């Protein structure tokens, strides 16, 4: 079933704590799920790829002039010099399929056989390019003279790859577990409730769980629940400090969406709808998304489209929420006399538009903000987004890309490293361990929670 040496299975899911084995078996470079013939596989891949093929994707497919600029924005190409990592090349079989099956000139291409049929062999070869070496960070979109949003196209390509059972095994297993248990990392509803209780006791902070009605539905990412549980205490402190009506809810708490990352459109929808329905049930005015990048894209920008109509509540990344609180004066913060550099999570900043929110909060904290050379919407990805951090065989490549980040952080000379994404944080932690680096990533939310000025009620 699996083509590499990872021991991640349904029964033994991904474990982010213990040391990692990331040996590649050179002869086997792809994973495969399910039993089907090659013909079936390719048919399913192509059908699911073109299923969502609307005007936007078609315009992108038609516009490329093969100038190669996208390579120069991509951390995989820049760090390796391997032309296969050129972003638009990652879509080559899908461009071929589009031209042959779906474009306005498709009959001509087929009649004259100008574009040959895509083969399973090609897709297996491309699995590494569609998954291991693309975090869908979208930096290539910004450099493209035609403005082709390649990251979106990679997301569509993953739809085809998932249905055809051509997903890197760990990512597939994580997504499957998220669908089955409600969380990719074993944070089931019961585990979540237990850990919220534990954090409430540990930090002596009042927790709100499963309230019938609340203005704010607060969600978490499983990485935080399992690895950085202090986040739960931190958001509770903030909520209590502003005297908000808020709740965690065991029906809808998991904000990560591995359906989206792995390419399973149905699972993506199911995971999103869970949060939406919970928010409606408790009459939330806003859903607060955790420090997680892709969760923001999944609910803030794709949520209503998954649901099929506008959402009756606001969707806010926690950094936006904090920015609003410090701006309207509801939250007063102590001054933190430290130099700080901030890592932008791609999906919140470049692709989400909430670029200024963390900077507003940092200003309120009074820190000396030292921006990295390429910051805000031009930031370099940590290398762990798009589900890549789950894929063991991609580790060596991921570390290579992480070198950019270490260099840029070091150049700032800042005392403290902050971000607003637990997945980035986990990638930084792993990179730190690998390189024996002296910098540790911290959470902006936790820094805020530690510096709330308690006001006399």
């Amino acid at each position, binding site marked *: 079933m699996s083509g590499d040496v990872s021991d991640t299975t349904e029964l033994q899911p991904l474990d982010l704590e213990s040391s990692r084995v990331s040996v590649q078996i050179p002869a086997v470079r792809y994973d495969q799920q399910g039993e089907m013939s090659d013909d079936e596989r390719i048919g399913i891949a192509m059908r699911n790829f073109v299923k969502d093929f609307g*005007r936007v994707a078609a315009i992108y497919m038609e516009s490329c002039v093969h100038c190669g600029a996208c390579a120069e924005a991509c951390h995989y190409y820049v760090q390796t010099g391997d032309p296969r990592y*050129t972003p638009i090349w990652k879509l*080559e079989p899908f461009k071929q399929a589009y031209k042959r099956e779906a474009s306005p000139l498709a009959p001509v291409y087929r009649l004259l056989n100008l574009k040959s049929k895509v083969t399973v062999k090609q897709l297996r070869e491309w699995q590494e390019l569609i998954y291991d070496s693309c975090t869908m960070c979208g930096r290539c979109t910004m*450099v493209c003279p035609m403005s082709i949003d390649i990251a979106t196209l990679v997301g569509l390509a993953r739809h085809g790859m998932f249905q055809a059972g051509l997903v890197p095994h760990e990512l597939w297993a994580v997504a499957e577990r998220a669908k089955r248990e409600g969380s990719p990392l074993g944070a089931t509803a019961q585990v979540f409730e237990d850990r919220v209780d534990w954090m409430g006791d540990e930090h002596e902070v009042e927790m709100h769980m499963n309230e019938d009605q609340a203005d704010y539905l607060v969600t978490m990412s499983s990485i935080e629940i399992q690895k950085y549980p202090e986040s739960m205490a931190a958001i509770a402190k903030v909520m209590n400090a502003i005297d908000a009506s808020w709740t965690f809810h065991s029906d809808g708490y998991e904000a990560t969406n591995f359906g989206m990352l792995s390419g399973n459109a149905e699972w993506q929808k199911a995971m999103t709808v869970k949060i939406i329905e919970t928010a409606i049930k408790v009459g939330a005015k806003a859903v607060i998304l955790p420090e997680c990048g892709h969760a923001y894209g999944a609910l803030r920008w794709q949520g209503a*489209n998954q649901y099929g109509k506008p959402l009756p509540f606001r969707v806010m990344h926690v950094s936006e929420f904090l920015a609003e609180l410090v701006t309207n004066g509801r939250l007063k913060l102590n001054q933190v006399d430290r130099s700080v550099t901030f890592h932008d999570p791609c999906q919140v900043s470049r692709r989400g538009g909430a*670029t200024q929110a963390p900077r507003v909060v940092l200003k309120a904290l009074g820190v000396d903000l030292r921006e990295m050379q390429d910051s805000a919407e031009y930031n370099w990805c940590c290398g762990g987004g798009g589900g890549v951090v789950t894929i063991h065989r991609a580790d060596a490549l991921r570390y290579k890309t992480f070198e950019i980040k270490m260099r840029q952080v070091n150049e700032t000379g800042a005392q403290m490293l902050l971000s607003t994404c637990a997945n980035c944080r986990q990638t930084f932690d792993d990179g730190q361990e690998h390189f024996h680096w002296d910098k540790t990533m911290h959470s902006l939310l936790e820094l805020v929670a530690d510096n709330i000025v308690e006001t006399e009620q």
Partner: protein
Amino acid sequence: MDLLTFARGPALQAAFTIFLIGTFWRLLGVLLLRRKLDHSEPRQPALAGAFKGQIAHLWPYQPFASRVMASYLLGYAFHIGLVVVIFFYLPHILFIQDLFGVSWPALPHAVVNAVGGITLMALVALLVKRLMNPVTRLISNFDDYFTWFVTVTPLVTGMLAVAQVGARYETLLALHLLSVALLLIWFPFGKLMHAFFFVAARATTGMIFERRGTHS
């Protein structure tokens, strides 16, 4: 019918017809596809992004400049060069006036000639880059090379005709017109269509990101 009469008459007419029908077919085939309504709550109105996107992607953002500037400059050199040569060379203006009845001042022959030379050099440099750079070599296909060929041929035959080098003027002019016909026929089938699609792509991405409160 001699070659020049054929090139001037039926060849160009047929080529224009294929160009028009093909271009409309391919544009409409894409632009008439459905686009799902975006239900997400916009951070700001999206429309301005359609215009901002056109401007923003004219020039690389600063963080990318050092890595892509050479390609941009070469690209601009030949695009602007082609516009100058096609639309500001006196015989071309007369040809257009003959067809459509409109005209405008021409640039001096010497200027157009020099620009033609620069354009040719830029196109050759980009071809060399395409062949030598591992990225462009990998991602290039028949369309890239054939499109280069049909773009360069009218330029070269035109410059030869002006200089009257290599054959009789009438023959060179006929070859020039035939190469233009080839360009027009190929236009709807290959990447020359980016002349239209770039507006659509920049508008699309520009609006998506404007809606999200950032830029493309």
